[in-house]
């Protein structure tokens, strides 16, 4: 099984973009050949999708990457140099990369994991997306599906 896993905060403006992509793909029935999961902020549940039966995981989330708001990039966890400064390991502190490290530390090989990071325009306690992300939303959906169906990247 292949998974598209959206993570974020549904009412966190652009922090919701991953969830909205998973939601739209599910609602439109576009999740053919893969399953779209809206994980919210419950990141530890990600571990349940990293078992030996999983062929591919695409995690979609907002990511501050120093790019123009609305731009996106596909990258793997080992391409990321930063980690949030956290003393512990929690759930809502939610460092995605730490959850992946945790899963890897358990000893079983992980399936291929790719992250689709989308540069946020605004993050706030509000529903919806900023205009920058709203205008490119259909392109995000298309890029995510393209990646899961063909393994190739559309330009971000």
């Amino acid at each position, binding site marked *: 099984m292949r998974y598209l896993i959206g*993570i*974020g*905060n*549904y*009412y*966190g403006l*652009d*922090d919701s973009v991953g969830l909205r992509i998973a939601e739209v793909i599910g609602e439109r029935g576009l999740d053919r050949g893969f399953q779209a*999961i*809206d*994980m*919210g*902020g*419950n*990141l*530890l*549940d990600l*571990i*349940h999708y990293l078992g030996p039966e999983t062929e591919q995981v695409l995690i979609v*989330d*907002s*990511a*501050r*990457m*120093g790019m123009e708001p609305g731009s996106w990039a596909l*990258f793997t966890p*080992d*391409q*990321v*140099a*930063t980690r*949030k400064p*956290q*003393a*512990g*390991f*929690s*759930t*809502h*502190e*939610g*460092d*995605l*990369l*730490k959850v992946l*490290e*945790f899963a890897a*530390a*358990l*000893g079983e090989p992980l399936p291929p994991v790719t*992250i689709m*990071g989308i540069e*946020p325009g605004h*993050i706030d*306690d509000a*529903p919806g997306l900023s205009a920058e992300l709203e205008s490119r939303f259909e392109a995000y959906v298309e890029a995510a599906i393209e990646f899961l169906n063909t393994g190739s990247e559309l330009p971000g």
Partner: protein
Amino acid sequence: MGQTINIDVHHITRVEGHGNIKVNVTDGLVETCEWSVPEAPRFFEAMVRGRHYTEVARIVSRICGICAVGHTLAACKAVEDAMGIEITEQTRKLRTLLKHAENADSHILHVYVLVAPDLLGAQSAFALVPTHGEVVARALRLKRLTHEWGSLIGGRTTHPTTVVPGGFTRLPSVNDLVALREKILAAVPDLEITVDTVASLAGAIPDFDRPTEYMAVTSDDEYGLYDGYVQTILPDGDRATYAVADYRSCTNEYVSPNSTAKYAKNRLDSYAAGALARFNVNYDKLHPEAKAVAERLGMGPICTNPYFNSVAQVVEIVHSVYEGLRLIDELIAEGVNAEALVQPTSFGRGTAVIEVPRGILFHEYAFDEEGFCTDGNCIIPTGQNHANIQADFDALLPWALERAMSEDEMRLTFEMLVRAYDPCISCSTHYLDVEFVR
């Protein structure tokens, strides 16, 4: 010359959201002993205004990623109360089964990932992997089980999709339930070892007592997770009951200068909600297997040690597993039948109470005659516990000073107390902050 202590924990780890601990003692004189919550309000009650009754549960589910089932169920129940919807017995059983999955799932996460590191002297669950790999693997096996259990009934465990006002949009088949039953039974050995593990670590739990008022849902025929009325119990066993519609008379919310969240109180200056409160209020209705576990772990009602909230969670995991099996057996025997959603017969104001992992949860909504929401109110358990945590702090500091604890020991003792409440202060934003390897 007395002891001097300076503890300033900004954003305590291994809790949900942000809370601060500040303790200052100079020459034995207490200057500050404070639990504070700096989270910004999230305005969910405002977000539901103007939305159709069919949307409300989906919106408020997003209040919490861990208690999403509880918020969904509370909203559905309040909507149904407002609209004269009487759900079927099959719906009630399936919802209760889903509620047990959420409670067990959250408690496993809390006990194994957030509390166990304190008891095993580790910084985090991550640090337990090399030293206690089997403990971590067992935790994940149990968590996966409850995740699958919740997903089967609710569509998914985080923000369930099948639970709507009037019933379910999709039902599990009897074969699904038979398979789930087998999986739960196969997990019983892991459950038994969990109890053994907690029993072996019980000595690391601080022996601190502070009697308070305990509030929980209770019911004449169940432990009170899904449905019932409100009951509180004082340490002397005196009980008081409240109708769900009168919830404001027992929560009495007020604003504290220490917090952006409202505080609550009832018969005393504060009350406790959560697994320990449920245990104290509903002990007689625990499944016999859970009662036996409580006895093995040295717990009986009325337990006044707030650190034992985590132990009560272990008792409740056992309760949920065996009650879940009982409900599954009943559903298998009766068959799962397709049912149309029960439709509204009126529009007005409705209230609901439910137990979520961290305690008693109230939802209230009002709707106009076209079914659009005109008013909403949610009182979450962590907000209800803030005043009680502060009262515990006030008693814990002299208790710790009497024991001549070092500053580090005292910091850990305060942090463990907060973590014992399993607070879900907020679901804050968590966007990635990325710098690429060059």
